[in-house]
């Protein structure tokens, strides 16, 4: 989280500033999508020549906003502009775009010679530029359902090309292409078939220390497994791989989300809670990615309930979440009051929604929590209550059950008290002393979090390359001067001494 805020905002500002600058230079004409693409390609080339992947990342960050502005004709123009000569690459790229209608075809001919005249054709664009253009075409193909088959085919071809080139400067772009490939398979509903390909790619990526691809591929695989409810395999994948720490926030958020889901299924609620919380913190703002935000919160609420906590009410008033979480709100209400009947009726009303969200099985587990809350409430309000009354109040089937349930609640530390079997009642003891060693533990954990936050922010700070040289030079100069001064003083002193001696 600290890394995110520190890194992303300045970069975005940079981008905005740069856009502004470029706008100004073009006499207040807003850049057309074609120009934007060209600018991006220029940036990518700069990244390759200066070995600075930062520029590529900047281009990729603007991909989402660019996606809304482009269409096939824009891309066709862009390809024509970038590839001045009629090369094989250009043909292959154009082949993926739908053939232009007759009118446009003539336009294409009109336009094609134009750029040839204006910028003198330099060297051929780099492979990175080609991959970037391919990525743009891919995102466009993916956005309409008619072209899924085509997008899959293209993604495959692109991946093969990337593997053949084997250039490290391609890695950030390759990660996006992998993602597009996974998306294509998911839309096609054939996720299971792509698994071997992803697994081998993941292996290669981790061998090459290609963090971006690795992060994307691990997430794709996890998504793949969870889609088929293969929690076992997903868990094994997680335990056998290490998620690259340098991965970007969106990937990290996804990873935490999947991890949270796996942990929740395995009843490791505390870990699930931490993971889901991380996912929420690292996710993009609610307005930009409402789907993810809602999905994470659904799990988050259920896990929080399973841990015996009640989520905050304000959460359900959040504009993005309010509607999506109605069912969950009802469940929370039922758990809070400890009413089994209300819980059951809510469960059956919203069963459809819960199974779509895949939280149904988790919510079913809440039954015992409802009972526990009920017992706890009773223990707080009565100092002595007969098992018969417990049975009636909690809608349990028999007194016998009530006795066992109360016994278990006492053992599990839900409440303090005793069962008096002969008299058939439960006596509730006094509440526990709130202060104990656990308080200092919680305090220690919080302080630890703050310190870690500080240390991470320090680590995440970026310094411009070579900027320290200047300082070094200055320092060097200062030292030189100091030395001279010292020497002078020494000389002076010596002189003095000499003088003294002479004197």
């Amino acid at each position: 989280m600290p890394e995110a805020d520190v890194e992303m905002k300045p970069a975005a500002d940079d981008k905005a500033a740069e856009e502004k600058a470029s706008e100004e230079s073009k006499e207040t004409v807003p850049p057309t999508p074609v120009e934007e693409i060209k600018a991006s390609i220029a940036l990518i080339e700069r990244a390759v020549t200066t070995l600075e992947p930062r520029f590529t990342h900047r281009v990729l960050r603007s991909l989402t906003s660019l996606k809304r502005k482009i269409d096939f004709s824009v891309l066709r123009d862009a390809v024509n502009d970038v590839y001045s000569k009629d090369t094989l690459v250009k043909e292959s790229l154009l082949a993926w775009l739908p053939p232009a209608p007759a009118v446009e075809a003539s336009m294409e001919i009109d336009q094609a010679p134009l750029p040839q005249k204006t910028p003198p054709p330099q060297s051929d664009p780099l492979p990175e530029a080609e991959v970037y253009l391919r990525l743009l075409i891919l995102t466009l193909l993916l956005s309409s359902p008619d072209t899924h088959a085509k997008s899959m085919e293209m993604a495959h071809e692109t991946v093969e090309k990337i593997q053949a080139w084997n250039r490290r400067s391609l890695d950030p772009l390759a990660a996006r292409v992998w993602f597009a490939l996974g998306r294509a398979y998911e839309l096609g509903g054939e996720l299971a078939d792509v698994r071997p390909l992803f697994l081998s790619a993941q292996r290669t990526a981790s061998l090459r220390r290609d963090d971006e691809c690795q992060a994307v591929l691990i997430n794709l695989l996890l998504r793949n497994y969870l889609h088929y409810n293969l929690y076992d395999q997903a868990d094994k994948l997680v335990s056998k791989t290490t998620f690259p720490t340098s991965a970007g926030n969106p990937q990290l958020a996804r990873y935490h989300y999947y991890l949270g889901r796996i942990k929740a299924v395995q009843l490791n609620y505390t870990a699930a809670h931490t993971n889901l919380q991380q996912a929420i913190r690292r996710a993009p703002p609610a307005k930009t990615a409402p789907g993810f935000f809602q999905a994470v919160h659904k799990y988050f609420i259920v896990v929080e309930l399973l841990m015996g906590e009640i989520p905050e009410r304000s959460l359900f008033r959040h504009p993005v979440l309010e509607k999506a979480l109605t069912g969950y709100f009802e469940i929370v209400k039922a758990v809070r009051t400890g009413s089994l009947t209300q819980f059951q009726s809510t469960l059956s009303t919203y069963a459809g929604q819960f199974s779509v969200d895949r939280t149904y099985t988790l919510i079913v587990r809440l039954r015992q929590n409802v009972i526990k809350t009920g017992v706890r409430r009773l223990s707080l309000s009565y100092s002595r209550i007969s098992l018969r009354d417990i049975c009636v109040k909690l809608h349990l089937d028999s007194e016998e059950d009530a006795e066992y349930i109360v016994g278990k609640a006492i053992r599990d530390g839900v409440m303090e008290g005793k069962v008096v079997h002969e008299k058939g009642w439960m006596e509730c003891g006094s509440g526990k002393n709130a202060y104990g060693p656990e308080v200092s533990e919680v305090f220690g954990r919080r302080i630890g979090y703050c310190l870690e936050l500080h240390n991470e922010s320090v680590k995440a700070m970026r310094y411009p390359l070579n900027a320290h040289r200047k300082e070094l030079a200055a320092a060097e100069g200062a030292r030189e001067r100091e030395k001279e001064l010292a020497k002078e003083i020494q000389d002076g002193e010596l002189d003095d001494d000499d003088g003294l001696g002479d004197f």
Partner: protein
Amino acid sequence: MPSAQLTALHNELKRAFDSPAGEQKCAPLLAQLKVRLAEAGLLLPDRNAKLEDLVFTREILEIGAFWSIRTRNVPSFDRYFSQLQTYYTDYRSLLPPSPREFPILGLNLIRLLTQNRIADFHTMLESLPQRNTDEVYENPYIKHPVNVERWLMEGSYSKVWNAREEAPAEEYKFFVDSLMGTIRNEIASCEESAYDSLPLKDAATLLFFTNKSDVVTFSQQRGWQVDFVSETINFATKGEEKIEIPKQKLIAANLKYARELEQIV
């Protein structure tokens, strides 16, 4: 098509399995069949395996799984089950559904319960084939373990006790004994903390014992004091454990804060 020899063995196995006292006969047959299957490359099938071969192998493995339960050989059941997993998940779309699939899945669930592997139980439950959630949960073979788990978790032990005779398949009963053992221990640990003392007679009903001598032996195992005069069990009251201040830990934490703060300032 599997070779004639394999088919013959298979038929023999089926006969032995269906006959009431065929348990001893099954063991050598299964071992023989497994060797044959391995030779035919069917034990661990690849993508090119023929459909009927797969069905054939699946049936043998299923019989093996059932046989393991009947002979109370849980590790062997575990092995058969892992081998069957391939057929139930990866080849699901290719093969016709097996009538023995849900019984075996249910048995595995019960097994996980008796071994108190609740996390695995839930993972397994999540990964059940879900054509239709209700269909799976309404399946008697699955419903039984799911209900048992729920009752165990909320503490309705008497329901578990009553359900032991309602097992949907003969094989489930093999797990009942160990399950009852688990329950008894659970109840006992609850009683230790929830009661000061308990009449012997009531303890017997709570622990599902029919005669007192069983209760007495059980109490001795758990280290309870049995008062034979008044016929009660006294649970040793654990005195209020003194909570000590973890000095060492506090000092270490404070030193750490000091060091970190020094770095910041």
